[in-house]
């Protein structure tokens, strides 16, 4: 069984929901970023989404835009993100999902990316601006299907389209909680429950919900409906507001513990 399936199996047994954490690789710098991710994994993160920064992130709000800029300025690129993946794989068994926009991956080369991502220990890939209609041009160049291509479902996605997307999906589904970019505040729990329910009617894959989830209360509310909760901007905000802090990894560790506790719901 692969690491992603394994994780969701384990969650089920323990009566927990998966905490999925996003950070931009290389923010604020390579070593600091590695220390941050290490601390987050130790604190109980269940799945890591490692962002490979892009200069023009049109699906992201200001917080992740700035984190991408910091990472790019510090020299992050696809090869360094893959090296970092290998380092992280050395210290943890949790699934690592690489997260980016299509252009950096296209420039690196689709076939090469597939090979190197797997070799360095990645489990999945999410390409924000590569909808199902366009993704074949990438996966056709892949030498296999060991890397899960995580698919997005939006609140605007009609049910017949959900069906089409989930047919080709593996690993888990990323359900966007609301229309808007990442980091836009606040969630509508009832709305999320409705969308999770509709999505469950067409797929047996685990469903992780993200966008706008920034507090333990949000996590608790979403955990009641979903299989996993994705948090990105809230972590990046902590990084941004504490760039000079002597123990930035410690702060992130604390954040993860808080969110993780909120995912433990008794059935």
């Amino acid at each position: 069984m692969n690491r992603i399936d394994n994780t969701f199996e384990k969650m089920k047994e323990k009566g927990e929901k998966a905490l999925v954490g996003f950070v931009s690789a290389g923010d604020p710098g390579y070593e600091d970023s590695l220390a941050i991710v290490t601390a987050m994994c130790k604190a109980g993160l269940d799945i890591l989404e490692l962002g490979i920064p892009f200069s023009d992130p049109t699906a992201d709000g200001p917080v992740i835009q700035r984190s991408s800029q910091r990472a790019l300025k510090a020299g992050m690129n696809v090869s360094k993100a893959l090296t970092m993946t290998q380092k992280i794989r050395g210290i943890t068994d949790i699934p690592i999902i690489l997260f980016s926009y299509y252009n950096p991956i296209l420039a690196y080369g689709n076939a090469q990316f597939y090979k190197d991502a797997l070799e360095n220990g990645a489990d999945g890939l999410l390409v924000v601006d590569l909808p199902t209609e366009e993704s074949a041009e990438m996966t056709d160049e892949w030498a296999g299907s060991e890397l899960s291509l995580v698919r997005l479902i939006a609140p605007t996605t009609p049910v017949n389209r959900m069906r089409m997307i989930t047919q080709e999906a593996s690993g888990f589904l990323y359900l966007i909680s609301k229309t808007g970019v990442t980091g836009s505040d606040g969630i509508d729990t009832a709305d999320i429950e409705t969308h999770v329910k509709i999505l469950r009617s067409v797929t047996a894959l685990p469903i992780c919900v993200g966008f706008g989830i920034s507090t333990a209360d949000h996590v608790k509310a979403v955990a009641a409906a979903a299989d996993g909760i994705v948090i990105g901007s809230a972590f990046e905000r902590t990084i941004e507001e504490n760039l000079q802090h002597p123990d930035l990894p410690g702060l992130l560790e604390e954040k993860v513990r808080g969110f993780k506790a909120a995912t433990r719901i008794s059935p």
Partner: protein
Amino acid sequence: MYGIDALDQKQYPDQRGHFGPYGGRYVGETLMPALLELEEAYRKNIADPDFQKELHDLLRDYTGRPTPLFHAKTLSEKAGGAAIWLKREDLAHTGAHKINNTLGQTLMAKWMGKKKVIAETGAGQHGVATATTAALFGMECKVFMGTEDIERQAPNVRRMRLLGAEVVPVSSGTGTLKDAMNEAMRYWVGAVADTFYVIGSVAGPHPYPAMVRDFQRVIGDEARDQVQAFAGRLPDMLIACVGGGSNAMGLFYPFLNDPVEMVGVEAAGRGIETGKHAATLSAGTVGVLHGAKSYVLQDDEGQILEAHSISAGLDYPGVGPEHSQFKDFKRARYMSITDDQALEAFQTLSRLEGIIPALESSHALAQAMIEAGKMAPNKIIVVNLSGRGDKDMGIVGKHINLES
């Protein structure tokens, strides 16, 4: 009737919105349903005689079409060769070709029942055109504009506000057109339920490149009839500037199957060798930006580079996907003109013909004089004079002395 062909009359784009290897829909899932809805509305409405008539009447009575085709005799003499004819899009309402597209798209929004429109703008011409047609149809309008462009195109910012639009300053990145488009896309993701995004060029995800082309082809359709009426034959060459490429595509497209040479002119800025330019087709590589695959200015790692041009409307590191296909098929030749050459042409046309061209169009004029000089006097060149230059007086005044 101003001709707008239904989407499937030509081979490209294909059913999935691709122009060969280019184009497509590289956007987040949240926008996909909206793009599919737009495509359906576009196919349906464009084939509807009532839509066509409403658009046709507005193009005639509101925009002032057809715009004239003018034989620039003194300019032709100075160039010393072929006859240069100017397609006077500068005389269209709001002073540029942009209104052909915004009228079409705003009408499309109206037919789709949307009451809010958004747009990105560089030089401000597309922003003004969108604010104008939004005012005409009583729609709420937000225009995203880079802070750098707000400064260098101040008169257009005031025009947009006067027309009732909200100008949203964008300070991320370089504060130019690319960043304005990023921000417009971000806003659209959050407002997609009731908001129509009026994209200003033959760029962006499908169906925009095809739709904008079909709204702009009125330029070429008219020019084709006009030149035949004056000269009794087709022109030998078409020349237009290319930023995203809408005025060029509008002029070129109706001549697609004719034996007419097409020349697109990009901004070489301070010179392609300096790296400070916006010559995407001449010096870029294939990538994905703003929802489409096309040539882009990028580094080896797929990060988008800053573009540079004296002309805000050409200051863009991408280009419409159909131009990329034209380049590969060699259907059009893509050249580039520096800031200095454009400034020279700006003054030349003003002095010789009494027409102040937009800095964007000045790139096409500069190339036209070079091409005309190499051609026989019985040859005909049609240049798209895509806009008027009043908006550029501020920036031009910084480069040439207009005080004494």
